[in-house]
């Protein structure tokens, strides 16, 4: 059943792929918007192991897509291929129709791909404010100024403070991440992503390891991002209640392959997801 649905989704996409070079007129005529992000046949092999296998998918602005799947399904690897930490063995990544498959992570970030990491990945000895300010500075293209003093750009500092306020870390702005609690580190991770003002927000298990009372703050932030802007949000998440409350669409990865894609309620109820989450392995003979 699922297989059929997936095939059905891929066909029009490969049609679009063929029309890639003249995408703009095509898109307008077909009255659909250009996907903010698209992967075409994205594949990566590590030796004999195929971690992500021929994943083709489009993500539109204003949509929050949850990516679910059991451990080792290739969700984070898929993210790494999109944001550039890993290079695809084959396939393409496109941002607003532009092929970015061979660009380094920094160039992808400049084109609007923002990534928050699963394992907290901050500047451990710099203050929380400096962490955010660096992200703001990157967005403002101010990094190549060598002869000004950093604090002459008050606007960057003000913006960083405003973002810290949004994630409720203002009172901890002079503390370095290594001295912050795990939950605060996660919030700071979200703050960096907000500061980058990306077109595509990629969250990799933003609530993992957080205490129960901290989770709503982060979920609210993600919800607000979607509400406020026309952002495309990708969310890797294990907690099904989180997925159910936030996602407009769910895609399921299993052994690196896209096995389901669609409306949250429908996908969660599907046998594939039930199998994957109840551990009734069938595909892994």
């Amino acid at each position: 059943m699922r297989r059929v649905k997936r095939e059905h989704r891929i066909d029009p996409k490969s049609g679009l792929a063929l029309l890639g070079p003249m995408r703009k007129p095509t898109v307008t005529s077909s009255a659909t918007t250009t996907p903010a992000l698209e992967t075409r046949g994205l594949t990566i092999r590590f030796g004999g192991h195929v971690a992500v296998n021929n994943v083709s998918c489009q993500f539109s602005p204003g949509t929050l897509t949850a990516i679910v799947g059991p451990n080792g399904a290739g969700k984070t690897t898929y993210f790494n291929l999109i944001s550039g930490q890993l290079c695809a063995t084959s396939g393409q990544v496109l941002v607003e129709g532009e092929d970015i498959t061979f660009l380094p992570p920094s160039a992808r970030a400049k084109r609007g791909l923002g990534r928050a990491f699963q394992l907290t990945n901050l500047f451990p000895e710099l203050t929380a404010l400096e962490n955010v300010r660096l992200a703001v500075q990157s967005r403002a293209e101010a990094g190549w100024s060598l002869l000004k003093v950093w604090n002459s750009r008050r606007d960057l500092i003000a913006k960083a403070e405003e973002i810290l306020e949004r994630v409720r870390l203002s009172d901890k702005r002079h503390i370095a991440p290594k001295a912050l609690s795990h939950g605060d580190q996660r919030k700071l991770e979200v703050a960096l992503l907000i500061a980058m003002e990306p077109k595509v927000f990629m969250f990799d298990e933003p609530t993992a390891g957080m205490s129960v009372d901290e989770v709503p703050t982060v979920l609210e932030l993600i919800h607000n991002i979607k509400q406020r802007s026309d952002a495309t949000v990708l969310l890797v998440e294990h907690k099904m209640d989180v997925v159910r409350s936030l996602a407009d669409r769910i895609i399921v990865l299993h052994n690196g392959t896209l096995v389901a894609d669609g409306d949250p309620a429908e996908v969660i109820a599907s046998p594939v997801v039930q199998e994957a989450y109840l551990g009734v392995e069938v595909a892994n003979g």
Partner: protein
Amino acid sequence: MSTSPALPLAFDETRKSGGALSGILSSDMPRSKVLTFILLAILVVLAATPFLFSGSQPLSTAAKICVFIVLVASYDLLLGYTGIVSFAHTMFFGIGGYGIAIALERLGPTWTSVAIGLAAALVLSAVLAVAIGLLSLRVRAIFFSMITLAVASAMAVLASQLSGITGGEDGLSFQLPNELRPAFRLLSEPILGVAINGRLIAFYMLFFVALLMFLLLLRIVNSPFGRVLQAIRENEFRAEALGYRVVAYRTTASVISALIATVAGALMALWLRYNGPDTTLSFSIMIDILLMVVIGGMGTMYGSVIGASLFVLAQSYLQVLMEAGSKALAGVPVLPNLIHPDRWLLWLGALFVISVYAFPGGIVGRLRQAEQ
């Protein structure tokens, strides 16, 4: 206000960037009364050396301190701020020295020769730094270090083999432009009993160029660019993900560092009126630089001032001090031998081990911590 113990007040944005001093120091104040005092003392003593001490030895020591402050500060830009371990820093120091030496020896003792030699040296350094950077800053840190080591060794061999140009192991002695020669008199009358001659002009030229270079480096490490370098040192992976092209930033940092080391090498050669493998190119100078950075405090420009001053002073006067001590203790068993001047390196080594053990953040780190 709560602050992290790791970076006390390093990012206090409430400190409004105003005031002339703050501007000159690029908002990076010493942040410790003791440190401020020591830095001021070093500045004043260096500036007044010709009038405070007689003889050529103190003046030469002061000149050497100035040159090494610049050299160590430029190395700290790489090691302390960017987290790059390079062993090719003396190569750039040497290029500066040879640039001046070869130009003045071949083209005659004029200011034009100085300009040509310096310009050629800067260009060569920049080209080499870009080449090393682009070829190897992508690879893992350890390979970069190994490559710099290989290139620096090759350069040292080249300098000693091409004796027709570089003077080989003997090095090159040369004449300075007229205004820098000891015989040149700017004023006929001495001031405060000190003759205002070419040597004095050379010293102050060196002093002010060194001061300028230091303040330039202080500005660079406190610029938005410098902040990116520190981010790269902390987590290059994340810096890249935020949109900073890490290879480009690192390469730029190594080019700036190389250029300033080249200027330091040129100053050294101009002061010594000589350049050879042992004064600028040798690997033992590289080790000295590393020690000075670590003793002073990595990632603090002020650390280079303290590290270089202490180290050069120890190099110049520890032996003298030990000789005096050894003589005073004559008759006591073992002790005179232990502090015999020949053992000065042993004691320097011991001082180094103790200081690294006791002050992992260097002297500057320790002083700033004490201020809290």
